[in-house]
């Protein structure tokens, strides 16, 4: 048959490839940038670089380095650091914003280590706020949203910006 002969010229199978971009990492990276840029940190940590640290999520770290590293947070250039495991996080260094991909006891340990510092801990865990995170990513209507423990942030001396508050689910 003519069609069959000529049809061999065209692919009979699937040709398109799935884009393997980590879509959640892209969205979360932008949220983290807004958390950095739109909250108010105490004046004691408003000099030098702005430190954003990622624990346990290489693709989120890569996305942040690729698109946001060295962008200005006020007058502070954004420095992004990544660690694979919770125990790798240096306890003696200051971090403005820490994202921790793991939940449960490990998240609680990070929160405990950061207690008393003006660090905003961000998590992506069903019980993130209970474990000590200030901001926790949640799924809402198939979208990434976040919830905030504004009281905890205030205790740390960090004022959550209106823009950030207005988009929070609770």
């Amino acid at each position, binding site marked *: 048959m*003519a069609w069959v002969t000529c049809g061999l*010229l*065209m692919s009979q199978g*699937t040709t*398109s490839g799935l884009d393997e*971009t980590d879509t959640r990492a892209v*969205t979360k990276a932008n949220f983290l940038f*807004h958390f950095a840029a739109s909250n108010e940190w105490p004046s004691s940590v408003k000099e030098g670089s702005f430190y954003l640290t990622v624990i346990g999520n290489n693709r989120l770290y890569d996305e942040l380095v690729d698109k946001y590293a060295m962008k200005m947070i006020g007058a502070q250039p954004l420095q992004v650091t990544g660690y694979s495991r919770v125990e790798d996080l240096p306890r003696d260094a200051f971090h403005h914003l820490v994202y921790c991909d793991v939940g449960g006891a490990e998240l609680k340990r990070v929160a405990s280590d950061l207690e008393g510092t003006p660090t905003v801990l961000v998590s992506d865990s069903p019980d993130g706020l209970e474990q000590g995170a200030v901001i926790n990513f949640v799924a809402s209507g198939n979208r*990434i949203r976040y919830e905030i423990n504004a009281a905890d942030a205030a205790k740390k001396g960090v004022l959550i910006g209106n823009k950030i508050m207005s988009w929070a689910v609770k």
Partner: protein
Amino acid sequence: MKTMRMPLFIRFTCALAFGLIALCMGDAAAQTPLERAESYVRAGDWDAAHALLAPEMDQAPYASNARAWFVLGFVQKEQFKASGASGLDAEDRIRAVGSLQRALALGTLTVRDEQTARDALDYLGRSYFREAIERVEGFTLGAEPEILELMGRYESVLRALDPAYNVIEQRADLHRYLGQAHARLLEAARYAGLPQEQVLFDGAISHYETSLNFAPAHYPTLYNLAITLYNHGVRQLKRINHETSMFELMEIQDVCVGLFEQALVPMQQAHQQRPERLETLKGLMTVHYALSQPEKSDVYKRQIEAVLQKK
């Protein structure tokens, strides 16, 4: 009185020459334009054959002469081949199809002529098809109307040869190819952020959906439709950067989630066709992940691991 007389051998030679000339002239006068055209055909002189026969076709003896239309159509087909012309405006091809179809419609061809006419028409029909496929393979924006018209002519010739011929499968394939052609241009990023990007996306989706109307359970079409929807969502997401406002981020998320949700439907249908196909399992795992549904994503992740263990 003395008369002049030619020698005998000269008189004989002249008589023979006059006789031959008369015979030749008499034979030429007896040949019809069709017969003379056929002798040109036998010599491969298509232009001479056409010049002789074409003006005669409006005349009463030939207007309803199937053999004359057949010879003319054959000549026009050969002229088309020799010209190297292509596209909708290749006039020799249009004329050849018309002449051959008219020859067949008159219904008085010999069995042999009818078969030759059908073969010639089949050749001409396939030439339309080949050109349509060539244009799909080298697809550029704006080529679509010509491709559809070329395919329409191919189908028309095919139907003339066999009125019962079912073109559904070809149409499903054509629209799938056009969907792929649009999607390939979309992936090439040449039109990233330009209005043509949306035109290409809409074109790809529309052709895949049309293809599915003809062949609803076609796995590659379902999979490609799902991928095109999903990748378009990712494409929007990748434009997010440090200048994206919170409001814009929410808007982009809404658009992306809408596309991801749409992608899920054909991806699931494709998965039902081939439950152990890794690319579909990976697709479902990825789309559920993008929709912030980690538990559902993990279900497919485990299925992938199970399939890989079997191999």
